[in-house]
């Protein structure tokens, strides 16, 4: 068959199969590895989160989560919540348009798990109630995370967490959005959330 009658897929496949190097037998599949520090402690997570520009929001004596959020954001008007622990001013399920989400000051969600190596928190359509873009439109993000849901490093994360195989959309957010595209100056709060705070809960 000529290139004209074959589909692009078949042409590419044929080209790849006709290739001379590298030979298949010479490059066996390496076994899966788990390397480096696998410490999954909350202390390591906190240190990594700080390095990535995120912060911890510790609860003060007798304070509830919602009170802590209001203490951290005194100017707060629109508090959008995806968790039962926080009442907020509106629920994420009730967001009807992205324009509405664009006006959210603080969004609070629960992460499925966290990665101690990177301070990353995993959010999928399950935690976000299918509001995938809205979480990134909010100005600030509060993440509830259980100390029992920590993995040590990225090898552990991909090997142990089933979410990577079940979620349609899964983002590991490690700190807030950031850029250093203008003269190398690191700016926390680029186009997504301006800050990311984690509460142990």
């Amino acid at each position: 068959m000529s290139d004209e009658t074959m589909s692009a897929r078949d042409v590419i496949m044929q080209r790849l199969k006709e290739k001379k190097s590298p030979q298949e037998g010479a490059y066996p599949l390496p076994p899966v590895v788990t390397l480096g520090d696998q410490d999954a402690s909350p202390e390591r997570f906190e240190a990594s989160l700080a390095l990535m520009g995120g912060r911890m929001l510790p609860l003060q004596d007798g304070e509830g989560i919602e009170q802590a959020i209001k203490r951290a954001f005194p100017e707060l008007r629109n508090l959008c919540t995806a968790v039962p622990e926080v009442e907020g001013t509106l629920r994420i399920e009730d967001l009807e348009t992205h324009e509405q989400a664009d006006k959210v000051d603080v969004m609070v969600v629960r992460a499925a798990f966290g990665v101690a190596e990177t301070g990353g928190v995993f959010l999928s359509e399950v935690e976000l109630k299918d509001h995938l873009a809205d979480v990134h439109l909010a100005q600030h993000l509060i993440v509830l995370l259980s100390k029992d849901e920590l993995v040590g490093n990225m090898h552990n994360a991909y090997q142990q967490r089933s979410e990577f195989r079940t979620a349609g959309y899964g983002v590991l957010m490690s700190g807030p959005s950031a850029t250093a595209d203008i003269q190398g100056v690191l700016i926390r709060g680029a186009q997504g959330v301006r800050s990311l705070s984690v509460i142990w809960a």
Partner: protein
Amino acid sequence: MSNRPVPHAKLAAEFLEDEPHRHFHDERLWDMRQKRDEQMHIMPEWQELREQASRLKEHTLAHLPQYLEQFEENARRNGIHVHWARDGAEHNRIVEKILKDHGHSSIIKSKSMITDECEMREYLEPKGVSVTETDLGERIQQLDNQLPSHVVVPAVQKLTTDVAKTFAKYYNTDPNIDDPHALAEAQRNAARPVLLSGDTGMTGGNFLVAETGSFVVCTNEGNADLSANLPNLHIATLGIERLVPRMADLGVFIRLLSRSALGSPITQYTTHFRRPKKGGEMHVILVDNGRSERLGMDDFWTSLKCIRCGACMNTCPVYRRSGGQSYGSVYSGPIGAIIDPTFNARKFSTLPFASTMNGSCTNVCPVKIDIHEQLYKWRRVLAERHEIPFVKREIMKMAGRLLAQPTMYRLAISGTEVALKTMPRFVLYNYLNPWGKHRELPHPVKETFHSWYKKNRLNRTKAQHEETQA
């Protein structure tokens, strides 16, 4: 596209003329290299990770048809539309067709080198499709109508004052802003309404996972997650070499990528797409555009292992002092110099010569591509194909003859020493001596090592040698 060789040395010379730009560029990239080193030093497993990454990529490339088929099957099962493009033109037509089928005309796009490689904006914009880059650096380059200067930091060749002028023109901001924070804020404010109104989201991608049919996008600004998720239509373009076999393999690559690129443990966003969002539609376009041909090149196929971290650019003394724009291509720096000639050997024939052969690029590469050796091999290939300029070719021929004959060589050296001492500059520094264009020729020495050795050691060594023999 012009086929004339990119005048890299000339463009680099122009870049070097402005001291503040030259100085910042060099320092900024070296800072990224040092931050990468700091990460490497605190990880005893670093070399093992590199070895694993290299072996995984080599294995995948050796079995590419099998893994592409596996990816396609799994992605389709997840509800993703999978397209194949032989080249950039076919890719662009596929995007055009998808948009047409939906009656769409505005793309919000996160940074992807491959759509630049396909010259997608140039194709779609005259057809009435607006394409808005939403990554800050890429947006700056788009507004200035320039190619990305660097694979990770596209506008790294610019200073705050340059960006302020560009934004003033397009965003009506104060042209005298000298605070990068204010400019980043201007970009955020300008991008939001465009993001909210765009009808099609486009992203690139860093990895395709065969086992799950997912793809992974590693970014920092949050614009990719907004671009992909705001509209109901998401198109992702990836090269066919982006595959990894298993989800677990990502652990190796994600741990290396941002550490090698910026010296940060991970990108702010590591996003895994496995199926379209509720009520949405997702397309993946797998692009060949010369990759299958490169895979057949014995000396150069391993360049396909590249994960686009830019570490080789940050460490390269030539790149740091010449700027990405001087390479005249989408991919610049050492990695650009070894992959660009596969796209156009004539146009990019000058690039493999933009190296001091110090090998630093090879040493920092997280997937262990022998970049400097490929640079050397490209020089040979290009010389064989007569793609190098006359003066360079003839000088090399002369040098070759000279170096092959010790007596001639020594005569020439003593002659050169005399010449360096006595000749006027215009004789020494002219077009026949491109080496001397930006460099001073070495100071003439009083005595060569050879003549010193002959006088002082040769007889003594001979005598000693005979003694031991006796």
